[in-house]
């Protein structure tokens, strides 16, 4: 197989006496959706926060496109091409779709002076937004709609679109379809499939087995801070995955 987009090796993280992560290793590949599974408190969120630069792991290494990096902050992660979509969505309800897609990544006009002043290039941002949404097949009634007036699924889609709009090749999604209706969930799953076809490496954190079988290629299970399984989704039954998650099985 070609070089992993992201490869985390022996990641450990403790909070006082609690060993939240114990030597967890995992690789994400381009064009592959990897599920990160585990019960509450298994260490999924801690692991994602280590990759996203929110936490500094106590031990272990993270390599992106083959180069080792210390991810010092969320911005640093973003600069390295790792984008996270959190459960609590980072979208602004009073800004419209384009404004959200380009928030803190605004395109400016007027050369270097315009860039220093931050003169917004609204027309270009709108055109780029249209192109991005079309590429990902995200359907929004109008780019001028404020996020607050959109449905949960559309808001989620904008948040994910924001994550990949700038050619970010590694995307971490934390329960992206939580609290969504059936049709909206399907839309988000379709979007994840589009990302995969686009060559993005996706890590999908979820509780929902149906989502794993629907869109994921690989599954990694954490149990009490340790990795207990790493399998191709096609090679394992749903029941076996559940057994790993609940801890009744601990080895393949």
């Amino acid at each position, binding site marked *: 197989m070609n070089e992993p987009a992201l490869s985390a090796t022996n990641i450990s993280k403790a909070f006082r006496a609690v060993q939240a992560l114990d030597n967890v290793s995992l690789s994400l590949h381009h064009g592959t959706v990897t599920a990160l599974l585990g019960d509450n408190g298994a260490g999924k969120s801690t692991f994602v926060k280590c990759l996203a630069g929110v936490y500094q792991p106590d031990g272990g290494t993270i390599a992106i496109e083959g180069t080792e990096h210390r991810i010092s902050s969320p911005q640093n992660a*973003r600069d390295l091409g790792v984008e996270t979509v959190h459960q609590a969505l980072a979208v602004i309800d*009073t800004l419209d779709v384009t404004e959200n897609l380009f928030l803190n990544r605004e395109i400016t006009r007027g050369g270097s002076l315009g860039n220093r002043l931050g003169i917004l290039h609204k027309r270009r941002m709108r055109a780029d937004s249209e192109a991005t949404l079309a590429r990902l097949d995200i359907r929004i009634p*109008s780019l001028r*709609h404020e996020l607050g007036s959109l449905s949960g699924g559309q808001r989620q889609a904008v948040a994910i679109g924001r994550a990949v709009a700038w050619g970010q090749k590694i995307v971490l999604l934390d329960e992206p379809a939580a609290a969504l209706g059936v049709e909206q969930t399907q839309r988000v799953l379709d979007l994840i499939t589009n990302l995969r076809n686009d060559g993005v490496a996706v890590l999908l954190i979820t509780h929902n087995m149906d989502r794993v079988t629907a869109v994921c290629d690989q599954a990694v299970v954490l149990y009490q801070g340790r990795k207990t399984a790493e399998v191709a989704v096609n090679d394992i039954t749903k029941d076996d995955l559940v057994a790993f998650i609940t801890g009744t099985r601990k080895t393949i």
Partner: protein
Amino acid sequence: MTRSTSRLPSALKERLAQQRQEGGLRQYVVYLAFVLILITFSVLLQDDGFLTSSNLLNIGRQSAPIAVMAVGMTFALGAGEIDLSVGSTVALSSLVAADLVGDYGFAVGALGAILVAMLIGLLNGLITVKVRIPSFLVTLGTLGIVSGIARNWNNLQSLPIRNDTFTGLFGAGSLGPVSSLLIWTALIGTLGHLTLHQLRWGRHILATGADRDAANAVGINTVRVRLSALMVSATAAGFAGVLLAGRLAIGRHDLGQNDLLTVIAAVVIGGTSLFGGRASVTGAVTGAVIMAMLNNGLILMGLEVADQMIARGVIIIVAVALSMREQRES
């Protein structure tokens, strides 16, 4: 040609429907209110000289300092903060200007006053973001502190300004038929509008005001944004102090001290949310003109100062009630 005109009504309807989705028609209510109040007073006060050019000019001149303060307050509210110290900042900067103009000329007077105001804003901002006290409480504190300093500045006495350049430039003078006060207001309003809606900074202010956690999550430096918004508010108040000093040719401890409610009313009826994230500079300036127009109309109707205060209070409550309803709807 005919084709485009026949398409117009449906296009307009579509645009209106879209507008409703994009944040409501409420942002236009202030302009409608402006026209309605203008017409009402024009009819009711026909014989009292409301619609004379000298009275309209008077309204414009009176609204100028309020409008400048309102532009600044729009930034503070937009960022999810509030600045209650603008009135006392006006007073202190008028005294600073009056003091400096005599010895160092008009430029040092104006710039010195604005610099002092900026320092007040810096203090407000630093305490708010570093000590993590809500700006509501911080500026309530500095309101008292700055008022006290202003009262002590010249033992409650007013300081006369005898500098024709200063008074001409910042109040009494005019460019052709247009009062310099109106030119300054238009200038500040345009600058504020462009900053808020055409610059990255403005967008980050609104994002921070709407949802500070989300703004942080996308990497916006919300600490810097909030600090800067409170500095804009204070700086604008300082300039309003210069304009008041110029118009009245004095610096005095009570200038602007009663304007806080008027400024907040102007900004909120202009469509800016008291809870951050939504802001309109043109609305705030229009709101300031509405407040001056009401003030003027109520005086011509023979209302006392006390009645005006009551009217202003009612207007604020109604405006805030509308703004709350909008918040709950979205």
